[in-house]
């Protein structure tokens, strides 16, 4: 089985972020600079920044970058005055997610570590701390697998859920760099004072494919409700489907490109193979190390239980 779900040829510098996908020739997807229309025909979903039909996706970023993704095979960008780095930020973000849907792949909004072939993914809305927790676990010795996007192949044969790394670089705010000691690279934006940076994790895995073992929803309700600082709870049934729907990367893209029914069926299939948990923890910086240790220990218990044929460890 291939290490990546598709290959890409590009004409701009994308850094290390999708290195395993890049080829010189024979690519599945071509990324080129070119003319990008201001609208697409018969969009199913429209927002202030994108419009999407089943086969076309148009992204319009307020900084002037426009990207057209067509038929799962071509990405055309007009960067305006933006640098390659800024174009790549949006190309490998929202446009990358749309490309996955067009190619029948399910992108989850998740960061993940890899442990002995098993991928443990962390999801939650923007600001939930996915990247920071994953970077911190990498600092603890876990192998960093992906940031922000985890690509699921719903059609992959076999009993497990095959998943792929969507991004090999982290994006971290300045304070998270301090917490995780990830190696700071350039700022993600060419805007003075913008303090979010690309970063190299401490323990980067060269693997870009694995089997999804667990998906953990990051929550921050516990301390607001005056409960324990860290808890992990397995969730099932309708609640897990609901949480999984919230974990889908850009669900409006999925609705436009796949339709709601296909998305639901894919999530229902996913849930058969993957344990879903809620990790409720404080985000107060003083307790950060404790919450990372808590999760690290949980992964270790999961590994040992899995080896004994009983994966669930709440």
């Amino acid at each position, binding site marked *: 089985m291939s290490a990546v779900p598709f290959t890409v040829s590009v004409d701009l510098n994308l850094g290390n972020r999708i290195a395993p996908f890049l080829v010189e020739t024979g690519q599945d997807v071509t990324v080129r600079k070119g003319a990008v229309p201001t609208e697409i025909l018969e969009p199913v979903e429209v*927002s*202030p*920044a*994108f419009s999407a039909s089943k086969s076309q996706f148009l*992204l319009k*970023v*307020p*900084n002037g970058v426009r990207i057209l993704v067509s038929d799962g095979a071509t990405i055309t960008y007009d960067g305006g005055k933006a640098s390659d780095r800024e174009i790549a*930020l*949006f190309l490998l*973000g*929202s446009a990358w997610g749309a490309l996955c849907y067009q190619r029948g792949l399910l992108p989850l909004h998740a960061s993940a570590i890899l442990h002995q072939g098993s991928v443990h993914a962390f999801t939650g*809305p*923007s*600001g939930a701390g996915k990247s920071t927790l994953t970077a911190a676990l990498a600092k603890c010795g876990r192998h960093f697998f992906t940031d922000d996007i985890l690509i699921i192949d719903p059609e992959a044969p076999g009993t497990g859920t095959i998943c792929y790394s969507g991004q090999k670089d982290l*994006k971290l*705010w*300045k*304070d*998270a760099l301090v917490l995780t000691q990830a190696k700071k690279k350039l700022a*993600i*934006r060419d*805007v003075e004072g*913008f*303090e*979010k940076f690309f970063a190299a994790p401490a323990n980067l895995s060269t693997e870009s494919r694995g089997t999804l073992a667990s998906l953990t929803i990051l929550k*921050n*309700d516990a*301390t*607001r*409700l*005056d*409960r324990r600082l860290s808890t992990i709870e397995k969730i099932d049934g309708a609640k897990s489907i609901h949480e999984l729907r919230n974990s889908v990367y*850009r*669900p*409006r*893209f999925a609705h436009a490109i796949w339709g709601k029914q296909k998305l639901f069926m894919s999530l229902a299939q996913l849930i058969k193979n993957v344990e879903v948990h809620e990790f409720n923890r*404080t*985000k*107060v910086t003083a307790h950060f190390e404790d919450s990372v240790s808590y999760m690290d220990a949980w992964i270790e218990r999961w590994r040992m239980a899995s080896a004994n044929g009983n994966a669930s460890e709440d």
Partner: protein
Amino acid sequence: MLAHLLRDHDDHTEIDPVGSISSNRPTFDHITGLSSSDLTDDEVDLLRPEISRMIASNADKIEFIKTHDSYYDCGNGEPIFPLDCSYGAIYLVRNPLDIAVSYAYHQGHQDFAKVVRRMNCPTHSIAGGSHTQIRQKVSSWSGHYRSWHDQSDIPVLTIRYEDMVENTAGCLLEMATFIGLSGEGLPQRIKTAVEQTRFHKLQENEQSTGFKEKPERAARFFRSGRTGEGVESLDIDLQRALLKKHQQLMRELGYA
């Protein structure tokens, strides 16, 4: 109170969490298909009027949105809350001396001087950047008030917090009338809503089950609710600093 009032009024009416607060980052990301944390705060503002329109166009009733924002230009000449989808604004105003105390506790500290500096700063904004909520341009205490009351696009109902404490049912009736509620059962519904949301009851609920909007650093969300704490807790220099900056508006509103 409004949530309780509307729930009694119509079993099918719930305040949609999607529209819960104007600074909700997941809502922004969901609607735009972009990561707000990859955008500058000014770029986020440019998209906000369209987001309001989309929320309104998907709503089959009045959508309630809490906001800390002052009323300002989003960056392209359009107000941050567009006229064409804004029914009205219920503006809650409170004595700035009391706000200073409440604001500090809400942030989990008692550095009242720090809060007073913010309340006196015309360019004061909150959140944005790495924070869990998107940036809100709050302005100074009086700057915020003037921004909403100097515009004439969106109808504004102004309620003094102190009046709401004194005459809760009367103020709720004003709000209900403003949003178009009426009918024979309205007085009883108002009475019920007021009873269900008495401050001590909210405190008891928070004590027993917590409150999800409580900031992590704050000891509690429903802390005191009393009026007059500013005079009791702020030293005289801080009181003077607020009075000096906001004297005219404080007099207009009966706070000085």
